[in-house]
């Protein structure tokens, strides 16, 4: 009786651990999602600042946070076992996202709303259509 319990517990644990291991494609999608999330947070914050909807201090802090998060995402990417080509692609887009946040932070620091507006306009939008469809909102 007791052994049977042990066996089923072990099986359960194994299945948990099995769920933990993800395929390369899933991991790439996850890196991508994290990058988009913080890039778009920076963009969102920038746009709202241009519209004078949020105070400077909050913008500065959130952009700094975005910088940190993208940094640690880059760190995680370096440790992840992916093909060199995939890694390079992700690294470049991460770099671009960080650059956007940093330039926005500079524009906010200089109270230059026009530059910020330009940065927001020229940065990539999220693909709202596919995102909405994915969440079954369209």
């Amino acid at each position: 009786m007791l052994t049977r319990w042990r066996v089923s517990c072990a099986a359960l644990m194994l299945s948990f651990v099995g769920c933990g291991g993800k395929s390369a494609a899933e991991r790439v999608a996850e890196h991508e999602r994290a990058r988009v999330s913080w890039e778009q947070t920076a963009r969102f914050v920038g746009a709202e600042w241009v519209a004078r909807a949020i105070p400077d201090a909050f913008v500065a802090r959130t952009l700094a946070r975005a910088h940190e998060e993208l940094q640690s995402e880059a760190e995680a990417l370096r440790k992840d076992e992916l093909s060199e080509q995939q890694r390079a692609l992700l690294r470049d887009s991460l770099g671009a996202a960080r650059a956007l946040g940093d330039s926005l932070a500079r524009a906010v620091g200089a109270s230059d709303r026009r530059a910020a507006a330009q940065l927001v306009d020229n940065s990539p939008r999220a693909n709202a259509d596919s995102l909405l469809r994915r969440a079954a909102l369209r």
Partner: protein
Amino acid sequence: MKKVLEITLGIVTSIGGFLEVGSLATSVQAGAAFGFQLIWAIVLGTICLIFLVEMSGRLAAVSKQTLAGAMRDRFGYPFFLIPLVAMSALGLLVLASELGGLSLALQLLTGISFPWWAPLGAFAAWLLLWKGTFGIIEKGASLLGLITLVFVYAAFRMHPAWSLVASGIRPSMPKHESMHYWFIAVSIMGASIAPYLLYFYSAGAVEDKWNETDVAVNRVSATLGMSFGGLLSIAVLIVAALVFVPRGIRIERFDQIALMLTPVMGRAGFVVFACALGIACFGAMLEIALSVAYMAAQGFGWKWSEDARPRDAARFSLVYTATLVGGCLIVVIGVDPLAITLLSMALTAALLPVAIVPFLILMNDAHFVGQHRNGWFSNTVVCAIVGLAFVLAVVSIPLELLGS
């Protein structure tokens, strides 16, 4: 006429007091990650809460006993310690997350990033408990809490496709990230059912000297009040889904949540959000600190009353003071407030049976509630929802911890 007034007041208090950092954070996370798909979790949690709140009011009105007192009476002291310890530990965690929410709100409003907001907030809460009366705390906090209705306004202004909202009420399997989906579902249920609320509610009913004539009033105001409260959580989820999903933003930090009202209301939205968050968290802090103190005092037979001067209920006052200090320490140590919120809500769900099963036994005991015993319907509904939340919690918490 008096009854109508009582019911209205009961409903207003429940609406104003419903949202707190747990239900807010879990609803926002759900909306941002899964659109309207998790509305069912709010609905189930709220239904369960309606039954439980009605029961704890009924217990107090009929037996003149508080929930904690009745538990010690019925099950004896060694058993009583289990819910006492579980609920106190959980109370500290939840208190810490409310304090985190309050600090963020103050930071948003003042623009000052200040490590001392948490001790200040805890001190303000303590001062109110020390000097205030139950009436001030319950009615005042929930009247101010009506500001959270702004989420309903925002949800309507964003014109969601109501047919999609309705389809979220039906539980469905996740299409992606299933681990995270179930974890959030569990956290939502934990946040909605919030067992500490039951101890608070029954103590309030005894403090207000309810009797058997209040059973009907209690039933109506609990049902309507908690239903409207649940609608508030749903409104938060809708706004979060419509703001964050199309931008691809996942909520990983509290700061991101602060943006949810600006697309609809501009600068005012930012300020109103900060106020709503701050008031909701502050009110919840008062409730949690009091609940822990009520539980200890009633279980050990000490004198308890929020209306008495602290020196006349010394041990009771000491417990809520210590609880606030404890919660404050957790925040000062510097854990991520959003992470601790989600975890404590999920843990709440896992610990629900400890708090709810003995409660159900009490509510079926003629010795306590006489002819006002539970019917089979309420027993079944509560058992089913609590059981579901428990199973989901036990499976999804380890997975989420392993995954992250």
